[in-house]
């Protein structure tokens, strides 16, 4: 029996005297969260991420690094102290908080309280900091979503507010081209050419003249969840505590490959406070795949909840539920496992070589292509006339490119709470991107029917694909079933690295044939994808890699051959970019290499070959997602304009091959460094949802006061999708965004949505919301007409029929539904009369022809229109040490119509930041035994505020006919082009090509040395 060691500490907490009873072993983080100061977040426990930052005597400090007893007698400040609860509108917040909410500095919001406190300490010390001072001050708090651009702008804005200087509303800049101004003048006026950073630059949105302006759509609306996130309100999975809740913990494998001979859990189970220990002997063996994808999930079903075999260091072995997290971890150490260690294989080539260790030798997994060679899938597809096209080729280029294993590193780890509700149904509160898939996938594993399970998605602290996986839900639920109690599980950062998912490493062999007049006639891609220990997402990621890696230049002959193999490494899964970003690195670099070798202008070479408006995507039918796809034709394509704008803004032709003439630059510190500068570019194309598969639905319901509830299954994981869906509804219904109350998502109350992945939410869910809003609007119009006794033309309600407005025929009454405007919260009739929405709501609910104005709609698209983009990157290379510094990134984006320029540019900036990590430093590194050498955010290295280059975003709008108001996706696109643009820039600076990411200083140095 552990003796009671608790002590009482006295402190000033948020300005008030408080006493707390704490265990001396408790960190301040644990003590504060236990005392309901849940704005203070766990992110790593090692002082690397800073999510747990609090102010101690005014100084920002990692609360995970100090014991609670140490703050006895000190002042501690958390975000809860900044604004009164509840904060209901922006004015209720502290200026720093409101600046964060207004500028789009908040995406998932998990690191926001820490950023705000760090900013507060800075501004207290230095009311007028420079941009570099801000970057430096914020460099102790990681953000994985924003790329820090808007966080820095928020701090600048807050500083101005606190100095009582006036600030303008934070919004994008808009321009029409061609218009009154030339492109050059427009860019100069926005300071985009010189890259003058004294003025905070917001994104520029360029529209074609024909594009109609809308009211709410296209505006820089603040995020609908911004206020609560800025206030640090308990909104995340782990921010609630249930009565009697137990804490789960996972025992993981220390071996890369082993069979479990036996497990002795008696001692652990006997420990007081331990309520359950589950091993493979306790759980039925049901095969599944953990990837959250549509039914039926792609094979193979090569996982079980707990197995008698482990296939990577960090693989699941057993779970424990105990009265406290500490006790649960102690129990784990008491579980004795007898392992028969097996030979393992870490390298994908070796894994499919001769006589490798067989990772999936079990009899009950079906659908592995060749288990004896660890080959999960072999994919082959080709289109076009092979012989004819190769015959046309005057030059053939073959290159190999390699990409590494990247971690998502969302700051909120996977977290889940499961419990039985009062009806005996299992509730799963979880940090997921795919609530509906989770419910469907969980049921067979637990032996429950789907209707007995309810999945709730609260606020999510980032996911990037890693939460498109069932990582904890099944284990947590098994513990609730075993104990009858609520159980909470949350990964440690170490477990995130070893036991969640990651990006598929690839080896790509590209073979491209070109003619003397710059035509790409044939492209073959031979891909080796490493899926790690399990095959989840292995088929689809690699199919997408093939399809997207063969689309941008759409060769008349295109061929794809791919092996997806198992290795004894932590499992790969879905990750923003989803195969496409890997092959973009290959094909874009190769295209630049070809241009360089042939002496062609790279821009001209790419322009000749990139996919054009009206063209069919050559590989779209052969390579869908895990199955045959649907024919795809390009209907909107802003590539030419993206490139034109980018070239002008970077003054490309003045800089290309000229920057490095100043080969010895005097660095600011006076040290002569042989720096070389270069500029590079890349193009990219992605998709918008999975054609013919992704379905989303929405319901809109009117309230008594004329506001609306919008129910969506779409899972906002920090991207801002709740906001843009609300904007779409508001546009149709003629109200302000804050009259739309968005709920996402709860499998009991919100309609189905496939979830947040495949860049689908704006395009697919957005269309569903728009359809539902059109239907609801039609009902409102009709009710308004009835209230005023206006007789309507036509008998049937067009909106009711199919969710689209149609021309009505009929000649007696002169007013049609479409003549009635919904605007500014009221319904306006052609004769000038109006009825407010509140009057309509009250009338329809209580007075006349009573009924609930409510509408649902769903959407599926057989198109997946690619958004396009171009990235321009300027780098400095230290040729003696190989260090690469990216100094500026400009991205021009065709995402169709941009629903919200602030949230969309946030996606671009964040994607670029993750792309920079992928290109330059992030890599999971193993020792020979398969143990990860850098399972910490520090040594793994996620970009920080003080090392980010300047980033500019320019949207070049097009009108996608199948998108909501012309919108396409934006979420994944920006990550695709960063690595090849940097490779191109390094070549421009030094003449070397790097064909393996990340471009660490050592790799760059080796490449430089190999040349000389």
């Amino acid at each position, binding site marked *: 029996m552990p003796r009671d060691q608790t002590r009482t500490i006295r402190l000033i907490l948020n300005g008030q005297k408080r006493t707390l009873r704490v265990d001396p072993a408790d960190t301040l983080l644990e003590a504060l969260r236990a005392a309901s100061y849940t704005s203070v977040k766990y992110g790593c426990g090692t002082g690397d991420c800073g999510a747990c930052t609090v102010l101690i005597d005014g100084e920002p400090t990692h609360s*995970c690094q100090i014991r609670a007893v140490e703050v006895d007698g000190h002042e501690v400040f958390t975000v809860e102290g900044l604004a009164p609860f509840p904060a209901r509108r922006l004015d209720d917040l502290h200026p720093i908080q409101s600046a964060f909410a207004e500028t789009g500095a908040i995406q998932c919001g998990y690191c926001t309280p820490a950023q705000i406190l760090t900013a507060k300490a800075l501004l207290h010390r230095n009311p007028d900091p420079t941009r570099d001072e801000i970057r430096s001050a914020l460099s102790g708090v990681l953000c994985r979503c924003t790329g820090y651009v808007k966080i820095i702008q928020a701090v600048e804005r807050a500083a101005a507010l606190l100095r009582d200087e006036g600030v303008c509303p934070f919004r994008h800049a808009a321009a029409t081209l061609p218009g009154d101004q030339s492109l050059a003048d427009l860019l100069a006026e926005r300071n985009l050419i010189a890259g003058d950073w004294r003025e905070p630059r917001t994104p520029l949105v360029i529209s074609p003249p024909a594009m109609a302006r809308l009211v709410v759509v296209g505006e820089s609306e603040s995020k609908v969840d911004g206020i609560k996130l800025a206030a640090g309100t308990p909104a995340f999975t782990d921010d609630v505590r249930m009565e009697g809740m137990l804490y789960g913990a996972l025992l993981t494998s220390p071996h890369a490959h082993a069979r479990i001979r036996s497990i002795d859990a008696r001692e652990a189970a006997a420990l007081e406070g331990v309520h359950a220990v589950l091993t493979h002997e306790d759980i039925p063996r049901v095969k599944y795949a953990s990837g959250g994808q549509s039914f039926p999930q792609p094979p193979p079903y090569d996982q079980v909840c707990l197995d008698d075999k482990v296939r990577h260091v960090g693989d699941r072995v057993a779970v424990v539920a105990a009265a406290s997290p500490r006790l649960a971890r102690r129990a784990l150490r008491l579980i004795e496992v007898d392992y028969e260690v097996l030979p393992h294989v870490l390298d994908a080539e070796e894994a499919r070589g001769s006589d490798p260790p067989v990772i999936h030798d079990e009899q009950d997994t079906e659908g592995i292509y060749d288990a004896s060679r660890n080959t999960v899938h072999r994919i082959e597809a080709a289109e076009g006339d092979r012989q004819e096209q190769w015959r046309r080729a005057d030059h053939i280029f073959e290159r190999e490119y390699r990409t590494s294993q990247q971690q998502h590193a969302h700051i909120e780890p996977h977290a889940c709470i499961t419990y039985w509700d009062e009806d005996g149904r299992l509730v799963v509160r979880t940090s997921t991107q795919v609530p509906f898939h989770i419910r469907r996938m969980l049921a067979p594993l637990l032996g429950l029917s789907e209707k007995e399970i309810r999945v709730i998605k609260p606020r999510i602290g980032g996911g990037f694909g890693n939460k498109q996986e069932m990582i904890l839900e099944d284990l947590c639920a098994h513990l609730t079933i075993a104990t009858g109690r609520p159980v909470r599980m949350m990964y440690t950062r170490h477990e995130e690295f070893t036991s969640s998912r990651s990006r598929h490493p690839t080896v790509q062999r590209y073979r491209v044939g070109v003619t003397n007049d710059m035509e790409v006639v044939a492209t073959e891609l031979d891909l080796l994808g490493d899926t790690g220990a399990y095959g989840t997402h292995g088929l689809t990621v690699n199919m997408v890699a093939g399809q997207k890696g063969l689309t941008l230049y759409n060769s008349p002959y295109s061929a794809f051959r791919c092996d997806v193999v198992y290795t004894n490494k932590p499992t790969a899964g879905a990750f923003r970019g989803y195969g496409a970003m890997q092959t973009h690195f290959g094909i874009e670099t190769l295209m630049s290499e070809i241009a360089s070798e042939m002496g062609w202008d790279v821009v001209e070479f790419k322009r000749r070959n990139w996919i054009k408006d009206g063209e069919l995507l050559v590989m779209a039918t052969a390579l869908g997602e895990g199955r045959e796809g649907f024919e795809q034709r390009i209907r909107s394509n802003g590539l030419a304009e993206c490139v034109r704008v980018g070239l002008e803004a970077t003054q490309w032709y003045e800089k290309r091959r000229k920057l490095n003439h100043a080969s010895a630059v005097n660095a600011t510190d006076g040290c*002569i460094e042989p720096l070389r500068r270069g500029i590079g570019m890349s193009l990219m194309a992605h998709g918008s949802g999975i054609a013919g598969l992704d379905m989303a639905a929405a319901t809109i319901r009117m309230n008594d006061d004329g506001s609306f509830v919008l129910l969506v299954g779409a899972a906002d994981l920090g991207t801002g999708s709740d906001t843009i869906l609300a904007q779409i509804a508001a546009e149709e219904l003629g109200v302000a965004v804050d009259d739309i109350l968005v709920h996402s998502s709860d499998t009991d109350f919100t309609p189905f949505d496939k979830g947040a992945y495949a860049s689908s939410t704006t395009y697919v869910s957005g269309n569903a919301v728009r359809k539902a809003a059109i239907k609801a609007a039609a009902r409102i119009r009709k009710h308004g007409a009835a209230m005023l006794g206006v007789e309507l033309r036509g008998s049937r309600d067009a909106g009711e029929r199919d969710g689209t407005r149609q021309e009505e025929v009929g000649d007696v009454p002169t007013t049609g539904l479409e003549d009635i405007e919904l605007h500014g919260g009221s319904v306006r009739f052609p004769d000038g009369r109006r009825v407010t929405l509140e009057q309509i709501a009250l009338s329809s609910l209580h007075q006349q022809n009573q009924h609930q104005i409510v509408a649902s709609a769903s959407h599926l698209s057989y198109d997946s229109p690619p958004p396009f983009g171009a990235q321009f990157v300027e780098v400095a290379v230290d040729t*003696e*040490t190989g*260090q690469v510094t990216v100094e500026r990134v400009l991205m021009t984006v065709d995402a169709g119509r941009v629903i919200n320029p602030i949230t969309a540019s946030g996606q671009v900036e964040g994607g670029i930041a993750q792309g920079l990590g992928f290109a330059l430093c992030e890599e999971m590194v193993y020792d020979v035994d398969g143990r990860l050498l850098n399972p910490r955010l520090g040594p793994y290295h996620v970009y920080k505020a003080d090392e980010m280059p300047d980033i500019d975003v320019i949207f070049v709008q097009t009108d996608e006919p199948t998108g909501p108001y012309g919108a396409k996706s934006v979420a994944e696109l920006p990550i695709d082009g960063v690595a090849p643009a940097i490779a191109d820039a390094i070549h421009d600076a030094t003449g070397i090509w790097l064909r393996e990411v990340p471009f660490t200083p050592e790799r760059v140095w080796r490449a430089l040395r190999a040349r000389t």
Partner: protein
Amino acid sequence: MLPSFELLMPETLPEALEMLAGYAPDAMPLAGGTNLVPDLRGGKRRPGVLVNVHGLDALQYIGRQDRYVVMGAGVSLADVLESELIGAHGRVLQEAARVFANPLIRNRATVGGNLGNASPAADTVPPLLVLDAELKLASAGESRWVGLEDFFVDVCDTICRHVELITAVRWLVPPPRTFSRFRKLTLRKSTAISVVSVAVRVTLGESGRCVDAAVALGAVAPTPIRVHEAEEVLRGEALTPEVIDRATRFACTAASCIGDVRSSAAYRERVTDVLTRRLLAEAQEWSEEQWERS
């Protein structure tokens, strides 16, 4: 969540030393915790007792005593960065503090912890080595000054006994016309552990020649090291490219480089060469300016 241990909170230095003596060898001092807390969490260290020395007044000063700059071991890296005295007489240390971790870690991390942790990559060590710093090791009732070069034994191993605490660090105020600089190479700019770090001190005589020099390297051997052979080369010479080249070659030889997750041995050796050469070239430029000005 931390594993169980007893945490003692002494209020004075003598009390802390008594506690260390009382629980030795099972007790460890805990300063900012930026090394120790992750180590405890990862199970790398399992002491039964931690004696909190963070915030003890007796360890919290920076001042001048006679010909020495003296600072308490509890001084944080943020304090080092802000100290005018250190700026004037130990710029090399301040340069290390500037590129040390990030502002949050600098608020917590102490000089004593950086030394006591004895990582080969500890960033305060090469600067303090070139300043010929000494450490005060105190136990209940006793204390001694030791040269920093004699302090480190191996990776994470020092001559500091279980009952002892580093209480102070001191170095002689360098003579006028002294140049001292620090440079490190990391995988990224921000908050990254050094792949290689180099500190250089050069003192010029009346003639403009180098009368004294010190070169120290971090992260290239089990402990940070001084490169005396390189110093010999520099002493008494004018800093010419030829002299710099010879000194640099000694630095590379001394760096019995280790390969690890951050980089290979060959690359470390290369970076040692580049950084040493650059710092000495900088010293050369500086010495020319000095001479022109005199």
